């Protein structure tokens, strides 16, 4: 269970008082809680300093990594006509102002229209509504059902390896395949025909054939090797010219006699010869979800929407800073921050080009939820400020370097964060920093690792032991 400041303080107080806490205890819990805060701050600082700077000690890893669980985030509004924000707490004092971890402004509040009225900048949002999914078309005809390879005679001793070869025709092209089959580990049955079938089935070459040409294969009750196309979706396929060591059946070279039998069956083929896809053009990239012929029976509009989000949302977020979500049959694409909006016309310069294409069965439409584009926010960007040493509004030491770096900088003075040479009208800053422990409310979870909890208690007890040893001055010196 997570601890709180009060819980740690009570524990210290109980130990210091030797059990129950009496009302006339010399030590007040508020005093202990203040000390708990100070102790936690000291531990954090020591931890970072030890890790980062004390090279040569056994515990040092010499890495200045600020752990995420020490960070506090604040959204701080900038006062009018100023270039600073005031932190609600003092950050912990660390070298290079590392107490301030990250300063970010999301977007500025420029946007005064010609009438002098500030325009509302909305995040642009578009919806893609899928109205028709992928159909399961049962029309079809007759074709080859499956092919079997049955061995009827076999040698009493198997060779270590056989070269298996055959031809596969997918109704358009003939592929000649051959691969080696090792019989090592497949001499379990006295039926060496079955042993060979097992060895073929488990060989890398056969498995590669199945994966590459979308084939399913099994060994039936008679011990025959069967092959078929998945979902019977390819018509006019054929499996022929099966040879062992380059020789046909009943050749004395390999000693096997086998037959290749064909069983007629029906095939199901989508009436559309194309795959079905939903393609979204966004900016200079396309994102799609595709249903290849033979991979499906039918796909509902909701499933397509969910599939698209599952496949593409993260990639789109990384590449375009947009959130992609689905609800039912609707995919929503929304800017995370106003960046200029979307525009279905790539020949217009405003907004990010967005358009959909739906080859195959799928029918979908794209519509605007907010305005197509918001030109006033076109050049918005998420700005991360880099720390620079504090040297006032003009830093003669680093000014030229700051200029050449092309970045924007902040510097820290007290609990104020100044943006260096900033004259933009920024609304607010997001600041992540290591705040002093006193900023954590009494009843909130106190973020301290379990092993440090004990250290805080031990240190405080030592402190109070010293206090108890000191002789209290009980004489009233004010009596005249």
């Amino acid at each position, binding site marked *: 269970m997570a601890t709180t400041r009060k819980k740690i303080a009570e524990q210290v107080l109980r130990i210091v008082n030797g059990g129950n806490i009496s009302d006339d205890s010399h030590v007040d819990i508020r005093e202990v809680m203040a000390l708990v805060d100070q102790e936690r701050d000291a531990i954090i600082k020591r931890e970072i300093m030890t890790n980062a*700077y004390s*090279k*040569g000690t056994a515990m040092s*890893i*010499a*890495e*200045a*990594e*600020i752990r995420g669980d020490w960070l506090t985030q604040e959204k701080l509004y900038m006062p009018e006509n100023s270039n600073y924000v005031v932190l609600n707490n003092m950050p912990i004092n660390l070298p*290079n*102002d*590392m107490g301030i*971890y*990250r300063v970010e402004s999301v977007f500025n509040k420029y946007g005064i229209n010609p009438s002098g009225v500030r325009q509302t900048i909305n995040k642009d949002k578009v919806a893609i509504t899928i109205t028709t999914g992928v159909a399961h078309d049962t029309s079809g005809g007759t074709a080859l059902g499956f092919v079997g390879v049955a061995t009827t005679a076999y040698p009493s001793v198997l060779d270590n390896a056989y070269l298996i070869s055959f031809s596969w025709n997918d109704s358009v092209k003939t592929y000649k395949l051959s691969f080696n089959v090792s019989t090592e580990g497949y001499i379990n049955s006295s039926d060496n025909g079955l042993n060979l079938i097992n060895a073929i089935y488990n060989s890398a070459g056969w498995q590669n054939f199945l994966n590459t040409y979308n084939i399913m294969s099994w060994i039936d009750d008679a011990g025959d090797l069967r092959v078929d196309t998945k979902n019977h979706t390819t018509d006019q396929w054929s499996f022929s010219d099966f040879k062992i060591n380059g020789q046909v059946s009943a050749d004395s070279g390999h000693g096997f006699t086998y037959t290749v039998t064909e069983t007629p069956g029906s095939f199901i083929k989508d009436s559309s010869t194309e795959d079905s896809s939903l393609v979204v053009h966004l900016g200079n990239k396309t994102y799609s979800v595709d249903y290849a012929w033979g991979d499906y029976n039918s796909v509902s509009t909701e499933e397509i929407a969910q599939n698209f989000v599952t496949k593409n949302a993260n990639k789109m977020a990384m590449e375009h800073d947009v959130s992609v979500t689905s609800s039912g049959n609707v995919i929503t694409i929304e800017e995370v921050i106003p960046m200029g909006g979307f525009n279905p016309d790539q020949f217009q310069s405003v907004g990010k080009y967005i358009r959909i294409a739906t080859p195959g069965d799928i029918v979908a439409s794209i519509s605007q939820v907010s305005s197509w584009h918001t030109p006033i926010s076109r050049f918005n960007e998420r700005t991360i400020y*880099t*720390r*620079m*040493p504090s040297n006032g509004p003009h830093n003669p030491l*680093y000014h030229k*370097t*700051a*200029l*050449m*770096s*092309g*970045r924007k*900088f902040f510097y820290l003075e007290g609990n104020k964060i100044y943006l260096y040479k900033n004259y933009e009208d920024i609304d607010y800053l997001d600041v992540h920093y290591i705040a002093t422990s006193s900023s954590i409310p009494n009843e909130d979870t106190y973020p301290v690792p379990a092993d440090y909890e004990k250290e805080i208690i031990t240190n405080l007890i030592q402190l109070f032991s010293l206090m108890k040893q000191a002789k209290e001055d009980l004489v009233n010196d004010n009596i005249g």
Partner: protein
Amino acid sequence: MTAQFVTLDEVIQGLIVDEGKSSEHEYLRYFNIGLRGLKELNFDTVRQIKSVELQLDSKNTVTLPSDYVSYIKIGVADNNGNVSYMGLRENINFVPGTQSTTVQDNTENPPIFSYNNYDNSLWGRYGQGGGNNANGYYRENLDNRTIELSNSNGPIILEYVSDGSTGLTGIDIKVHAFAEEALRSFIYWKSVQRKRAINMNEKMAAKNEYYNQKRLSRARMQSFNKNEALQTSRKAFKQSPKI
């Protein structure tokens, strides 16, 4: 950004990751050191050479580009797409508008040469000697950041070593991929060089690493392929006297 170049920003971020830091608190300091490292590498390892055409001003001088460090070649463009060299003349006067106080004794054009012209002076004068340049002469004026010219009329072509950073900002400041690791090593070395808390071994290792990486990048930059070797070899074979 092409694979041939890496930005200084990327080099610094790589170093910060190398050091196991999770924030960019020392970025600006590293950037400052990186700019110096970039110059170091550009001077002799990467040799970022630029070529510009410069127009003469009314004082017969050209102003040097802001990123200019040293010239490689000064000349004029000819009709074949080549640059014809100009000559260095150390006695060009830097002070503009000065009045001549020399005695006009016509030493430049004594009568003896007047009778030895061939084809209206097109082929030079007999007995005058070599080392002259028909394209004009130059002298670099470091104080004014100009090149002073004489006997030159048109624009000149200047090939020079650039410092690789002046006038550029942000992602435009870049280093050749062969020198990326050398630059990163330079930044690390210089960042610890004057820190008293860092032990000498660490500093020496950082220094050695920089010079090793510099050697490596220098070797990579000076790659020489088979065709170039053959071309060089074949150029040396000729049946006429070698000039």
